[in-house]
């Protein structure tokens, strides 16, 4: 049975090095594995043993994995590692920490006292498309020239053009909402990332990195936006560890 060391996260221990070992003593990793820390300078990698064949990422393992990271995040600035990050020994983990120390510290400083929030905006896609279609019928339908007989190919192009224009209108609408969110969050100094049209219903999928004390203002801002856009469903989640705001290429 080949065992590996799974790395859950890299944490900053500059304010509380001793507390990490005792925190880990009360926690379990994937498959009930004991957790321990590999320390280097002001950082530590939280790790646990795992069998090589246990790697398939299913929902329950992913939740268990996220649970470990979330528990660490309650007490320490944390850089979550991608699921399945493993090395063969504690020595190899230490070497990785040494090689990437500066980048880890830089990113840990960036996320210290911050938390991530997710905002998913759903719509009734058919209803929204119908509304946009009604408002923009003139833009959507190519002008018909009464003197020309329309061939099957031209009809096909017209149909595709209509779909294309409707798609552009949906993207423009998502851009308008994103602009409003950006303005509304500017006061909270949020870092943000937006993804448009993740699916037909999920028109915006956003993540924000915010100071720990502005959660209430964030909820209020989202509430105001929801009041303005009654046809959309805003879902705000968090606080999360900074999953989407870590930029390290580990060497």
């Amino acid at each position, binding site marked *: 049975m080949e065992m590996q060391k799974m790395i859950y996260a890299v944490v900053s221990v500059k304010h509380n090095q001793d507390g990490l070992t005792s925190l880990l003593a009360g926690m379990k990793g994937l498959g009930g594995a004991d957790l321990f820390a590999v320390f280097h300078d002001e950082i530590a990698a939280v790790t646990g043993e795992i069998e090589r064949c246990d790697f398939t990422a299913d*929902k329950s393992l992913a939740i268990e994995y996220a649970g470990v990271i979330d528990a660490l995040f309650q007490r320490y600035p944390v850089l979550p590692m991608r699921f399945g990050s493993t090395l063969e020994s504690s020595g190899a983990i230490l070497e990785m920490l040494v090689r990437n120390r500066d980048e880890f510290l830089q990113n840990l400083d960036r996320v210290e006292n911050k938390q991530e*929030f997710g905002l*998913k905006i*759903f719509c009734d896609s058919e209803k929204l498309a119908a509304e946009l279609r009604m408002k923009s019928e003139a833009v959507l339908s190519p002008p018909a020239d009464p003197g*020309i007989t329309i*061939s*099957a*190919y*031209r*009809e*096909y*192009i017209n149909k*595709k*053009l209509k779909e*294309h*224009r409707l798609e552009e209108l949906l993207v423009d609408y998502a851009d308008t909402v994103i602009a409003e969110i950006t303005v509304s969050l500017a006061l909270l100094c949020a870092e943000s990332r937006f*993804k*448009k*049209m*993740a*699916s037909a*219903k*999920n028109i915006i999928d956003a993540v924000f990195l915010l100071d720990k004390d502005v*959660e209430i203002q*964030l*909820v209020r801002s*989202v*509430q105001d936006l*929801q009041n303005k856009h009654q046809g959309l*469903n*805003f*879902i*705000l*989640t*968090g606080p*999360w560890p900074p999953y989407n705001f870590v930029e390290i290429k580990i060497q």
Partner: protein
Amino acid sequence: MSENKILFNTGSFDGISEEIGKLASKAEDSRLKLTPENADSGLAKLVLTLVELIRKLVEKQAMRRVDGGSLSEEEIERLGETLMKLEMKMEELKKHFNLTDRDLNINLGPLGDLM
């Protein structure tokens, strides 16, 4: 996602779970599961997904040009014929390999789903 992580939502929790579950299962479905037993169909799925991606990109670019007004009526006619035949050929290939639009869908990250 646990309910205590939801800070704001005007819809029902079940509704969100279902929608997020669909997004997750779509990501799962879009994985290519190649094994020695399904190497042929797995490869067909991979190739047709790439062909469909290119076809969609060509179609998008063509619509931009039609919309931009840079094509003559004759060019639009020929474009219509080409795109229509490409779509029909694609339908034939999907049928031949027992694949559906859902099988060929891949998530293009910031660009969203292929279909």
